[in-house]
């Protein structure tokens, strides 16, 4: 990532796909914390025992798809039969092929933590590095790999809240044969992120874009993409940073 390529968090969000040589762009309005919170409520994981096998299922995709459809404002690149644009039809959202919607919805949370080689403890805060795919107006999906989040260390109570949430589950159909259902921990992780974040770099917040590191915590809490919050907080609490 060059220095001027920072991830623009505010404004419309583009998700760009290439299908049989044609470029498809989905344009979404900014996904707010409230939108993500609603999606997080739908996300859960199930683990079922069948004999000696353990089967894992999750509802993340359906929740992401619902969020994607809710925020989708327009689509560019599809051709309708007989000419014209897909957008000319009142049910244009329903006409988009499901595999395309599913691929685009998956890209909403294509962000992951990057292992930092630096083992030294920084008294100014623990840094977590992320990389993410994010669409541009020009029809590309760029990989941003200089996204850094700096945190205060979590205290024991915050760690307990996380551990307690992780240990909560329900068993349906009997303890020996049933499946365990885990509700998503995303909302709690986003909450812990807001409590612990000190600064971020690699992001731009629209008109309030800052050079280098942004230490405006209120701005970060309001504008940071919630999936980035979740992944960074999870890495802080469970990754190498937590073990340090």
């Amino acid at each position, binding site marked *: 990532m060059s220095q001027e390529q920072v991830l623009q968090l505010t404004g419309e969000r583009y998700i760009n796909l290439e299908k049989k040589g044609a470029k498809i762009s989905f344009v979404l309005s900014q996904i707010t914390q409230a939108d993500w919170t609603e999606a997080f409520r739908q996300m859960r994981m199930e683990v079922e025992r069948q004999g000696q096998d353990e089967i894992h299922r999750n509802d993340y995709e359906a929740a992401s798809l619902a969020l994607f459809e809710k925020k989708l404002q327009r689509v560019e690149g599809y051709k309708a039969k007989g000419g014209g644009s897909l957008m000319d039809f009142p049910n244009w959202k329903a006409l988009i092929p499901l595999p395309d919607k599913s691929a685009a919805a998956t890209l909403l949370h294509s962000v992951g933590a990057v292992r930092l080689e630096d083992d030294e403890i920084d008294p100014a805060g623990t840094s977590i590095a992320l990389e993410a795919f994010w669409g541009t107006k020009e029809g590309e999906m760029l990989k941003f790999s200089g996204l850094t989040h700096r945190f205060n260390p979590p205290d024991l109570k915050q760690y307990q809240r996380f551990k307690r949430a992780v*240990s909560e589950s329900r068993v349906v159909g009997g303890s020996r044969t049933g499946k365990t259902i885990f509700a998503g921990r995303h909302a709690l992780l986003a909450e812990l992120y807001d409590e612990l974040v000190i600064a971020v770099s690699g992001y731009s917040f629209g008109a309030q874009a800052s050079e280098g590191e942004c230490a405006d915590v209120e701005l970060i809490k309001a504008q940071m993409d919630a999936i980035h919050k979740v992944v960074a907080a999870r890495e802080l609490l469970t990754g190498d940073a937590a073990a340090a």
Partner: protein
Amino acid sequence: MIDPSKDIAGLQQAALEYLEDALSAPDRARQERIAAESKNGERVLRNIAAKRTLSHGYYVRVEYLLWLLSMIELGLVAFLQILAAEAEGMQAVTLARNQFQDEHPCCPGCGARNEAIAPRCGSCKRELAMKGAA
């Protein structure tokens, strides 16, 4: 719908199985390496799979209760707020841990856990006093 945090008897059983799993983990890892190179590896893997009889959520809860116990043992309890279900769960896990420690005493030489009836330590090969022996 069962909430594992409220099923105290289930938690005690899960804790015992969890500790037994942890004890046999190095041996299982060794057998897994052998299975990877063996022709009937899949069958071998089935035989050495962790012996767990309860739904997955029980073991996740046990991990948390063991963590909570360790925090209390470190004297950090003053910082933590304990719920009734956690206190009861920790009691169940403690009972399971006591039973496990009784069935797998530590070698006085190297500290490794062994079967109570083992004549020698599996790790340092030191001769062990049989439980109940004069």
